[in-house]
């Protein structure tokens, strides 16, 4: 009896995770099919100024790049992002009634062609088409904000 009980326990302990993983695998597959062609675009909003010093939380990974800018303090204002399929666009609102519209033009195994349009209520600030290395990023910086400037790291991950 005890042996049978142990066998049942062993079978369940092996079969249940397998079934769960199979179900999870299906979920992953479905998820992958839904977002497989999409590029995950992320737009951070960083405030750079000399009013404060140091790098705020959440910016540790890009700290060394932010340090290249001629500012002493960096604080993360917001993080936003979305999965954008090729030929599709996503508009991100940033501080100051400004917006960043990202259009994924195309992608391949190595790079993604992305059009980035930064606009303000007064009109266009920047309209650029860049080719970002897969899982790479670049930054748009310079617009003034509260005695400093805004830095917008834009990531493309797929």
């Amino acid at each position, binding site marked *: 009896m005890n042996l049978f009980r142990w066998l049942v326990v062993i079978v369940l302990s092996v079969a249940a995770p397998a079934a769960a993983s199979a179900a999870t695998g299906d979920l992953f597959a479905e998820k992958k099919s839904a977002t497989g062609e999409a590029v995950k675009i992320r737009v951070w909003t960083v405030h750079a100024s000399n009013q404060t010093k140091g790098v705020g939380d*959440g910016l540790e990974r890009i700290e060394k*790049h932010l340090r290249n800018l001629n500012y002493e303090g960096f604080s993360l204002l917001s993080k936003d992002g979305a*999965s954008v399929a090729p030929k599709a666009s996503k508009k991100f609102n940033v501080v100051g009634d400004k917006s960043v519209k990202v259009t994924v033009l195309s992608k391949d195994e190595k790079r993604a062609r992305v059009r980035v349009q930064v606009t303000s209520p007064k009109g266009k600030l920047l*309209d650029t088409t860049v080719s970002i290395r897969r899982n790479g990023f670049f930054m748009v910086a310079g617009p003034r904000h509260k005695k400093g400037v805004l830095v917008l790291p834009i990531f493309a991950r797929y």
Partner: protein
Amino acid sequence: MGLTETEASRLRAEDGVGSADDEKQAVAGGHDPAEDRAFRQAVRAALVPEATPPLADTVMARLGSMRSDVRGAVQEEVAPRIADSVMSVVMDGCANPPRVSEAIRAEAGGPQSMWSAIAPAVGADIGQDIGELLRGSVNAEGNFEAMGWMTPRRRFAIGGLGVAIAAAAAVLFTIGLGGDGVGSAATSAMTPILDAPVDIEDLEVGASSLVQVLQFGEEAPTIIFVSDYAGDEL
């Protein structure tokens, strides 16, 4: 008909050339020299014509048109060529004229290189290529650092394979956790970032903006820096 002494004195006084004795004698003769002079002036004024007749035209009409070629008179017919005269004397009797430049070179010999004298002054070796020296100096002076701008010719580091494997694992992990494709802070923390520059295919800015493309290293992200002249806040 002759003039008396008194009349002569009166005329001289009237002409203004008389002496004091002439004046006295005219007065003694019962004449006033001042009145005589006034009378003469009145007669002269009455006789002077109102418009002076142009005499020049009349004279020139009588003389006719006449030109005097003074330059031609003093100039010789043929100007003497002094150089020809000198050369004729010098070349007299010479079948083959001497070539001065060749004679000077033959006398002085070939020019010697001045680089041996200049090189020590500019801190270079005699055998050193001056072009290479100048290029090196310019690079050193300008603190030139070779850096690719907007070019895709960059290679992954040796550790790229490891990063790629980690990236693949992180992607699978993110797919499992992500709901709407927008990663949370925790998910983002698990995602590696490949610091890679971008290729800028097109770049436009607003009319009141100035743009700079910054690249602080081979593997650093490209930074598009937009400056707004009007100071507008983004």
